[in-house]
C-alpha cells in the first residue's frame, strides 16, 4: 500500500509544481516529489518476510531472506543531495526576494512585461 502512496505523492508534487506561483511553495512541492520518489524506490526492494540487510549476532548468516539493499543504498545518498539542492534553491529565493521584494513569480516582471 505504501507503494501507491509513493506514486500519489509524486503526482501531488507534480500538481504543486504546475499550479503554485510562490517560490517557497514550489520548493515544498519539489520536496514532496522527492519524498514520494524515495518511498517508491525503497518499496520496489521490499520483501514481506525479509529482514533488514544487516548481519547481527541473531540473524547471523547470509542464507536468510533479506530486503534488497541496493535501493536503500541509492536513496541514502539521494536524501543528503536533496538537502543540498533545497538549500541552494532557498538561497536563490532569498536573493530574489532581496532584489524584487516579492516571492510571487507572477509579480516579478521583466522590462518587456512591464
Amino acid at each position, binding site marked *: 500500500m505504501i507503494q501507491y502512496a509513493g506514486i500519489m505523492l509524486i503526482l501531488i508534487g507534480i500538481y504543486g509544481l504546475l499550479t503554485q506561483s510562490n517560490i517557497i511553495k514550489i520548493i515544498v512541492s519539489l520536496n514532496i516529489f522527492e519524498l514520494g520518489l524515495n518511498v517508491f524506490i525503497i518499496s520496489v526492494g521490499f520483501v514481506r518476510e525479509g529482514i533488514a540487510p544487516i548481519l547481527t549476532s541473531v540473524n*547471523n548468516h547470509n542464507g536468510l531472506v533479506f530486503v534488497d539493499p541496493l535501493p536503500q543504498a541509492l536513496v541514502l545518498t539521494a536524501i543528503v543531495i536533496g538537502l543540498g539542492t533545497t538549500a541552494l534553491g532557498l538561497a536563490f529565493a532569498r536573493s530574489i526576494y532581496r532584489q524584487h521584494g516579492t516571492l510571487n513569480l507572477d509579480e516579478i516582471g521583466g522590462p518587456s512585461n512591464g
Partner: protein
Amino acid sequence: MKRIFALVLVAVVGILLFSGIYSMEGFPRYGEAEVSERVSMSYIDKNVTRENQEVVFGVSENLETGSANIVTSIIVNYRSFDTLGEVTVLFVSALGVSLLFGSFEGRLRSRYKPNFILRTGSKVVFPLILVMGAYIFIHGHLSPGGGFPGGSMIASAILLMYLADEDFRVRIDDFKKTEGIAGAMYVLLGLVGLMISNYFLSNFLDTGTVGTLFSAGIIPVVYVLVGLKVGSELTGIITDFLKGEVE
C-alpha cells in the same frame, strides 16, 4: 483554467504511471520482490563472481568486504566512486550557497530571548549529540547509520547551539579546513588503492572478521572521512543561512 489544465495533465501522467508500471513484466508486486534473482544477491553473499559462499557473523574471514551492514558495503566499497561523486555534488551546492550569501554580514536574531534553562540544558545535551554522531559514523559498518547521518547529526548539534545561544559562533574557517582535508584524503585513499591493486578506491586493507570493530578494511576510514566532510559542509550551509541582519 491553469488548475484544470494541471489536473488533467496530472491525471494523464497518473494513469500512464499506474498502467505502465503494473503491466510491466517482471515488476514485483509490493512485498514480493525476488532478491535472489537480482544483482543484490552478490552483495549479500559478498562475492561478485556469483559463487555461493557462506557468510557467518563473527566467523567468516578475509571476504571481499568484511562489513556486517550490507548497505554500507554497497555505498563505501562496491559503489564508492558513486559516493565520491555525491559528496562532490554536496560540496558544489554548499559552495553555491556560500557564494550567494557571501556579501551578508551579522546574524539573524529572533524576537524571543532564549531563557536560562534552554541555554544551560542545550550546553549539557550538545556534547552528547556530538558523541552520538561520532559513534554512528565510526560504527557505520556494524550498525544502521554511517557517515551521512552521523555528519548531519553533528550539524544538527551545532544548529541547536545556534538556536539556544544568541552569541554562539563557530569558527567557520576551521570547518572549511576540515572539509577540504577530508575530501582530499578520500581521493588520496582512492589513489593509494589504484597504486596497490590496480583500481581506484579498492579495498586494500585486511578485511578481518565480519562483525568486529576493526574489520572491513578501508570502509570505516572512508566513512569517518565522509562523516567529517558532510558534517562540516552542512554546518557551513546553516551558518550561511543564519547570516543576514546588519548589526
